[in-house]
């Protein structure tokens, strides 16, 4: 049985901030459609002091009558960047994502606070080899890790296994391609789950045990794994990694979206 304690978290324990995380106003400086449903927002935050790769921001919107709502979005940008990049995936029935992907324009000001999160983060001190596994917009915090790794730990053996529905749903494809091209120690493996172009040579199915056996570092290399995506994908993938011999404390997860369970 587990010993009470925080053995799996101590590596990233930081002093809690002494004062409240304040809401700040960020100004939208650029928008870019990453996929037909995902939009990247570049924001300027006064006195932004950076973040740790993997962290997220809380976003708060206020309607004219004072009604407010909040959501969290992962940070895509490199930690040292002067401007912040968030990626918002459109949930058609959603309350916030249609606004952020369709209504917002440069010059708009959005309240946010952060960066937040101290476990699903990676710094060079965490080491590797780094096994990154994502589905859909789960690639966003991992993209921040890869951008950071390219500067802080180039040459650290790293693999990204990334599952999306179709080739046009690949978020950050140009930067993923570019990193993989520039760095032979980085491998990016894509799998398409709902139809692939005729000339597609990669995987064409959901991430499964066989795929992980082929793509993931073996446990002998003592890899550190980060898994981010919809709940069912993360649950299954984390279970598979543990079955492949990854110690549970070397598998860090972040989940979003519905559980897949009946109500």
């Amino acid at each position, binding site marked *: 049985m587990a010993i*009470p304690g925080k053995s799996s978290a101590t590596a990233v324990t930081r002093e809690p901030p*002494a004062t409240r995380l304040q809401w700040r106003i960020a100004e939208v400086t650029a928008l870019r459609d990453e996929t037909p449903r995902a939009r990247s927002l570049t924001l300027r935050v006064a006195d932004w002091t950076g973040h740790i790769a993997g962290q997220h921001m809380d976003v708060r*919107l206020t309607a004219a009558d004072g009604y*407010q709502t909040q959501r969290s979005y992962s940070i895509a940008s490199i930690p040292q960047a002067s401007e912040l990049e968030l990626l918002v995936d459109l949930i058609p029935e959603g309350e916030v994502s249609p606004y952020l992907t369709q209504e917002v324009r440069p010059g708009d000001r959005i309240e946010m606070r952060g960066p937040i999160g101290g*476990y699903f983060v990676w710094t060079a001190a965490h080491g590797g080899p780094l096994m990154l596994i994502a589905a859909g917009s789960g690639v966003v915090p991992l993209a921040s890790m890869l951008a950071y790794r390219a500067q802080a730990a180039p040459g650290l053996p790293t693999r990204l296994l990334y599952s999306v529905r179709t080739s046009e749903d690949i978020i950050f494809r140009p930067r993923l391609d570019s990193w993989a091209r520039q760095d032979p120690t980085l491998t990016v493996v894509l799998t398409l789950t709902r139809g692939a172009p005729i000339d597609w040579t990669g995987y064409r199915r959901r991430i499964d045990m066989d795929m992980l056996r082929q793509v993931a570092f073996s446990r002998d290399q003592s890899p550190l794994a980060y898994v981010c995506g919809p709940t069912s994908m993360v*649950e299954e993938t984390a*279970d598979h990694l543990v079955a492949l011999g990854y110690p549970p404390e070397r598998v*860090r997860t972040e989940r979003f979206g519905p559980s897949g*369970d009946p109500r």
Partner: protein
Amino acid sequence: MRSFRSRIVRFAADPPKLLPLETLISEYGPGRYELTLHYRSDLGRAADDLAMLKRLVRAVARRHGMTACFMALSYGLVHASPLSTLPPRIANGCSSLARQSARDCAAPELSGRWPAPSTIALLQGRCHSRDDSQYHIARKGIIVAVDDKPPVSRGFVGRRRATAERERVPPGQYVTLDFPILSAGPTPHTPLQEWSFALQHGPNRLAEWNWQQFEALPKTSITVDIHCVTKWSKFDTGWEGVTIDALIKAAGLEQSPTAYVMAYSDGGYTTNLPVADLLNGRGMIASKFNGEPLAPGHGGPARLLVPHLYFWKSAKWVRGLSFVAEDKPGFWESLGYHMYGDPWKEQRYSGD
């Protein structure tokens, strides 16, 4: 705060001087500055200087994500002025950045510490402008005042809820019909024959139950709303389990040996709670959700349930409570999350 001031100084005082700024002094009130302009005998030029200072402060405020406005400073506060009857050496322009509430405009002994959180908020852009009609160029100086209404997100409508529903949702939360799963690592799968639950006090095991014994304890059913710090709330969740009151009684304890507990789980997860939050039916070890055995993804075979706190306090895969004298941070609490986590006070992160 520092960068706001340094920008003003950079624009106003560094050569080439845009403004004849003599000093920029922190005033008593948080975020309040006295900006002293060089004396000009020409009233027209003095007025120009004040107007320009106003524009400058506004522009810098805008760079900090806020809009400044200006109000007259009462005559009595200004001891030297080009407009006063005594010939002064300098003209004063008092510029104050402060929230409208009396508490925050007050001297440090009233507001507690300097800079006050509201001042930091202000400089980080939480605040925005008052109505333009309240702008005045002071005869004796200027006060810049800013209030803290959040800015309207242009074009955002949002989804209104019925009042009854709204009152059930803590601030910053939205209602989900789904039951999302959030955890930091893989889901442990402890077989029931290896499962046990313990009450611990230091090195002493006060009581321990295996699965069969635990299931034989008196059960309680409750239907409650739950609130996750990641912002979803779910209404009317049905749980069945053993209350902490019943566990303490079954352990033969008269009362809790300490005021705090650390709940600990398979996988190494921990979370800290005051014992008072677990007693009188407020906390239980739940093993059924909506009539079904609790699924591993949701914390099964059993999880702590403390529905009046953010749901990270309801530790999944819980294996015991350790009574401790001091309230020490658990897993998320040591990673920047709040020590207590009251959703109605929106205690999400440390300092909230």
